[in-house]
């Protein structure tokens, strides 16, 4: 941290702190207690937040604004690694199951507010307020879920899911609104549509029939009308039927 400004009032500090998911569910009194043991930094655009020279094992929570994490390349130029916004936890995150980014710098790209906690402070806080430990577990679970969703997206989706996605995509690009729903203005044979989603014509016809019977779509003369985009999105997202 290059310059640490104490916030103008404790209430401001408290108000901001209550938004941090780590502290969700805690009483105002508890948050007041935490407020005394953490540091809030108000950063202006371009101000440095993290550098490889910082003391190790500190976590920073982006409370407001956006932060750019970057490294310096061998020819002295900056290479942006990531952009983070409100709610992101940065820094040396072994306590949160994540390794420190080597040689990483971070700077505010908007006016930002950063809350800094040392591991000792965090441990003491967890001992005093076990709910923070529960919130950390929830945070890690969300990260695991996100990683699993990514894996799932890479794997092959079910035919109904692929068809729903393709129809929504075609609707977005070539659709016109009509009384009956979104008409996809592209004449496609079942064979062409089957090839687009990598299945056989027979499977496609069967799946289109299912969608029609469920009131999701209508088909006529090689054209598809999306009648219920919301439920179709549900299938595209992988909801059960």
């Amino acid at each position: 941290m290059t310059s640490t400004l104490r916030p103008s009032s404790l209430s401001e500090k408290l108000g901001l702190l209550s938004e941090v998911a780590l502290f969700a569910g805690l009483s105002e009194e508890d948050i007041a207690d935490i407020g005394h043991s953490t540091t809030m930094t108000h950063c202006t655009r371009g101000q440095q937040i993290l550098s490889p020279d910082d003391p190790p094992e500190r976590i920073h929570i982006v409370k407001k604004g956006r932060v750019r994490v970057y490294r310096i390349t061998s020819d002295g130029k900056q290479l942006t690694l990531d952009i983070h916004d409100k709610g992101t936890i940065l820094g040396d995150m072994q306590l949160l199951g994540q390794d420190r980014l080597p040689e990483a710098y971070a700077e505010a790209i908007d006016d930002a507010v950063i809350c800094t906690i040392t591991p000792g402070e965090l441990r003491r806080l967890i001992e005093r307020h076990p709910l923070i430990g529960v919130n950390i577990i929830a945070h890690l679970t969300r990260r695991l879920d996100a990683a699993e969703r990514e894996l799932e997206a890479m794997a092959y989706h079910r035919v109904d899911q692929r068809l729903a996605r393709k129809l929504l995509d075609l609707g977005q690009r070539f659709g016109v609104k009509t009384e009956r729903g979104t008409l996809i203005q592209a004449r496609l044979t079942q064979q062409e549509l089957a090839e687009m989603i990598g299945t056989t014509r027979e499977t496609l016809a069967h799946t289109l029939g299912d969608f029609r019977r469920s009131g999701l779509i209508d088909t006529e003369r090689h054209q598809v009308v999306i009648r219920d985009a919301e439920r179709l999105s549900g299938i595209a997202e992988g909801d059960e039927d």
Partner: protein
Amino acid sequence: MTITVEPRSQLGARGIPRVTAAQMAEVDRLASDEYGIGILQMMEQAGSHLAEVVRHELGGDLVGRSVVVAVGSGNNGGGGLAAARHLSNRGAEVRVVLARPAMRSSEASRGQLATLLAMAIDCCVATYDVSDDELAAAMGTADTVVDAIVGYDLGGPPRDDVARLIGHVVDARRPVVSLDLPSGLDPDSGMVSGIAVTAAATMTLALPKPGLFTAEGPRHTGRLYLADIGLPPSLYHGLGLDVGSLFATGRIMRVHQDR
């Protein structure tokens, strides 16, 4: 000394099987799950061949030629990053521009990027690390711009960072060599919704995508090359495709649009 130009083998487009984006996703899956051919192996082939097509397009010699490589965060971008290494190895002055922050790239692409950083190749992220004016100047004076922004997994009109980088490539008005297909072109329909690169040449991988031949495809594709990424013909049998010995006379084929 004679210079061997590998992409001299020629094919008519008729008779070459075509693969939709969904079929190509299945090809990638079969390659890795059933044949143990990993994404890095395919990326390496794509990058090496792409550098060869750029050399061919530039008249046969890469030494001192300036090439800006525009890459997206997916595996198409990873192919572009591999090409950047091969182009630099062979004497080109290479600058790499990423559409999105580095950590948003696929794992294989991050590996390629790490190699480029170790080689001290100039890499930057558009918008964040380089001003629009500087980027326009770099692209506008390049001998060639390589477009490895989006591949067959386009999934709707390009948006945000991706659309902005495609816009830079379009505005540069320099000869573009696209990897797999021009970024923004729908691989299945050959239609453009939003913005798309118009390439002088496109090197498509494994098998051509139908969109290269229909609707707006031919105008955006330019000269079409087909490159081998080492997939066995038996892999395609699972999709009902018979590719035969497509690359018998060369690993990069020039494909002519049927008239």
